């Protein structure tokens, strides 16, 4: 296999409140011999909220991010579902609407950039599965995750709208997603089957509609717990933040005790590949997760 090389769009959370996401991503890439160039020029994707305020501006900023991946001639990978969706939406809008593309490029020209549409945009989860391959990952497992029942939580923005994602997520079916289950399998963990694996965590209305947010994340976590999950794993740091940080208050809203470690997808892979405790960064979780490092062994 020729060496894989990607431009990494880190997004905001991996640089701030979830440093463990960035360190585990880089550790996994290093273990697997995947070369990563961090797009230090990139800005925030708008997280759907900038889009609510000013959709055109959001397209301009996302197009600028993509320009830097294009300059390197690399596929842009994301480690956040919402970064993935918003970048892919801009790419789709510009690639299918020449008039909009021209308008955006008119702005980009002012800072000496041009959006061409030459770079693919893919979440790291699908880069691992589609490009690196599950069989190859399996060969590298040093610490099989066979001690754990792991609940995959897919996160909306990698799987819906399916039409937008199909070219970059291996045609994942939003009603029967399998990628995370397959990855857990490859790492020799036990995937937990539960109804809420493809549902919404409520993160995006955490501030403005807190009750709704708590109900959605609570339903999902309780469903995972009732199906004997020891931990949950998600490819999205926003799902992670919602589900890891607010377990106390969420539990009160849905009337249940919730104690469930929630791992980032790269943390789970890093754990199985035998990366160091520091790289996996379980200490950065609000819901205690550091014990998993020893429990896996």
């Amino acid at each position: 296999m020729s060496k894989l090389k990607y431009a990494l769009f880190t997004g905001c959370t991996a640089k701030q409140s979830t440093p463990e996401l960035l360190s585990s991503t880089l550790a996994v890439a290093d273990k697997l011999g995947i070369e990563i160039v961090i797009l230090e020029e990139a800005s925030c994707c708008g997280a759907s909220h900038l889009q609510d305020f000013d959709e055109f501006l959001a397209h301009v900023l996302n197009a600028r991010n993509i320009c830097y991946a294009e300059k390197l001639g690399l596929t842009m990978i994301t480690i956040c579902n919402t970064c993935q969706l918003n970048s892919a939406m801009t790419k789709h809008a510009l690639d299918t609407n020449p008039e909009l593309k021209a308008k955006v490029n008119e702005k980009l020209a002012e800072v000496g950039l041009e959006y061409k549409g030459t770079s693919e945009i893919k979440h790291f989860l699908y880069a691992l599965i589609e490009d690196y391959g599950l069989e190859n990952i399996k060969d590298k497992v040093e610490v099989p995750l066979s001690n754990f029942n792991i609940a995959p939580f897919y996160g909306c923005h990698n799987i819906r709208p399916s039409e937008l994602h199909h070219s970059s997520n291996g045609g994942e079916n939003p009603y029967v997603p399998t990628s995370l289950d397959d990855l857990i399998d490859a790492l020799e963990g036990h995937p937990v089957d539960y109804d809420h694996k493809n549902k919404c965590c409520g993160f995006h209305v955490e501030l403005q509609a807190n009750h709704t947010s708590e109900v959605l994340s609570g339903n999902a976590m309780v469903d995972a717990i009732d199906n004997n999950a020891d931990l949950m794993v998600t490819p999205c740091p926003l799902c992670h933040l919602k589900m890891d940080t607010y377990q106390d208050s969420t539990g009160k809203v849905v009337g249940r005790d919730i104690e469930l470690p929630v791992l980032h997808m790269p943390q789970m892979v890093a754990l199985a590949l035998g990366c160091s405790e520091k790289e996996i960064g379980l200490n950065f979780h609000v819901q205690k997760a550091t014990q998993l490092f020893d429990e896996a062994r």
Partner: protein
Amino acid sequence: MSDTRKVTIKAFRFNAETDYLPSYKDYEMEVGKDELILDLLNRIKWEHDGSFSYRRSCRHGICGACGIKVNGKPVLSCKQNAMELLDMFNNELVFEPQSKKRAIKDMIIDKKDFWDKHAAVKPYVEAEVDPHPEHETKQSIEEFNKILDADLCIQCGSCHYACPVVEANEDYFGPAAFVAAYRFSVDTRDNAGIERLEATAERGQGVWDCVKCYECAEACPKEINPIEKITKLHNMQFEQGVAQSNVATRHAEGFVRSIQKHGFLDEADIVVYSEGYLNMHKHIKTAFKMAKAGKIHFTDALPWVDNVPKSKNLDEIQKLIEISMTNKL
């Protein structure tokens, strides 16, 4: 490969007048490759149990009566090929009404909440029309194009009952009502645009409670993409000066403030800016837990401390915001 497949279909059975709890019954049948879900509903009734109830009418994807959920996926029975779903769900199909808690009999639900919310956004052109007009009120191609595909909605309820917010918050209008609100607010013959936008700007019922899950986009059998219209309504509220300054609107606009300063989002600032200092007490417990885990630092919220990482070439980002921003709060 044979053109037919022998399968067992599980159907939700419930009669609100006589049953305390619903049950699921199995129906075995040979399914042909061209059969629709509606054909299978008919066959349950005609070949197995005459009391099985569901709505159906046009059989052409126009009336919107026959929406149900199959294995949780919203479908319009008369448009959905059965074999496609058998492939998708490993030959095990479960028929359920769009909303189990609203079930009246089997697949039939009480859609009152849907119709009330749809009506609340005035889903019609409101205009004073001369009873004896001299000429027609014509629409140009450009004017018509602005409506996008929002006019294709058949009010089947697929998106409405796929929306998790509709389930969690009974005031929320839901995606179908927002599509209608958008469709009539951009109609140049209409005079109720501001009133409609104000209704969609109201917290609780309006677009600000949307969780961005895209279930509606996935559910729509007419491929309307309701959340695209929800985003447009958000933008229109700012464009037309309807947006009030509140935690939701500041949360959207606050992104510009952060990106201008850092390129990235300032995670502490967006909370402080959206909520206002006076409401920060709500977040102290969370902030404390996050600080303990090393996710944030107490100095993050202080206006004179800047811990936020900066994008390289930040000047480009600032310039692009300056020349591309179209809206104001």
